[in-house]
């Protein structure tokens, strides 16, 4: 049996400039669906509902894993930064964050400066 959606997707892809455009359009729809599903499920849940606590834990763990991977095993273009420079950027950023009493901007700039400095030396 022919897939009834295939011609629609093909036409959509054509209109959007081929595979890249089609992938983008489908992804944009999927992102809306993910966000909407979260809002829908939350419905009238209170902030202290276990499901909300679980969702917050999964979000934070994902973010922590993202950072850990970006520092230890980055993919793509970021891999061109040598690991001592990545580590120095993270360490100096965190130390500056502590030293400034939790100010984001100076800590961010200090971390990036440390990364650039270590990289220039290597």
């Amino acid at each position, binding site marked *: 049996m022919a897939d009834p959606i295939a011609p629609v997707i093909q036409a959509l892809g054509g209109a959007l400039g081929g595979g890249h455009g089609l992938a983008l359009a489908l992804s944009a729809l999927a992102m809306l669906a993910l966000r909407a599903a979260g809002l829908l499920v939350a*419905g009238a849940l209170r902030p202290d509902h276990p499901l909300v606590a679980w969702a917050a834990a999964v979000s934070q763990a994902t973010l922590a894993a993202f950072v850990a991977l970006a520092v230890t095993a980055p993919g793509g273009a970021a891999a061109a930064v040598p690991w001592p420079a990545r580590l120095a950027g993270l360490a100096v950023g965190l130390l500056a964050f502590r030293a400034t009493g939790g100010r*984001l901007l100076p800590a961010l700039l200090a971390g990036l400066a440390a990364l650039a400095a270590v990289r220039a030396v290597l």
Partner: protein
Amino acid sequence: MPQPAPSHPARSGAAAALGAPAIAMGVSFLAFGAAVAAAGLGLAWALGASLLVYGMAGQLVLLQAGPSGAAAALGATAANARFLPMALAIAPWLGPSGARRWLALPFIAITPWAAAMRMLPGLPPAARLPWFLGFALVSWMVAGLATAAGFLAAPLLDAPLLAALLFANPLYFALLLAAELRLPASRRAILAGIAAAPLALLLPPAWGLLAAGLAGGTLAFLWGRRG
């Protein structure tokens, strides 16, 4: 402890977005715009990815996956699957469940989410949604403008500089997480997420992050329930 209500919550949210969040987001979206130009795709595609997908992990999967249509979209969706638990976690803080909460829909992404989870519980309920929308609209516009700037400036940016710029985003997230470490529930989730990160190396890139987050987050949640 609730803070006094800001007289213009939307404006104070917008102002909060203009410091470190704007720089961290700006440089990573700048790098993305330049990478799209280098891949030979158009400015419209770059802006569409930044503003509609609006989650860097998924955007990079889309860009790197090539013109494979549905498969690339599936990978990008897996890479950004965190939007679902993030929307679920933030929804109760966006005011009463009703039509207005849906205004936040397109803007649920790491930077506005993390800022809102820090700020909203301390604000009076009526100020929460306006604060979020103020912050989110500025972040979204910064993302779009930086993408366009990166796309247009691509010939001037060399590869080592772009690689360094890509590091601003994880560093910024690391600082946000460091600020959360004092809360026991957050501490458990962050440590479990780091411990689960190696899982991601065993799986295809698009699925690895999702698996590590699910495993680490669920472990941290169960650990908290036991304690």
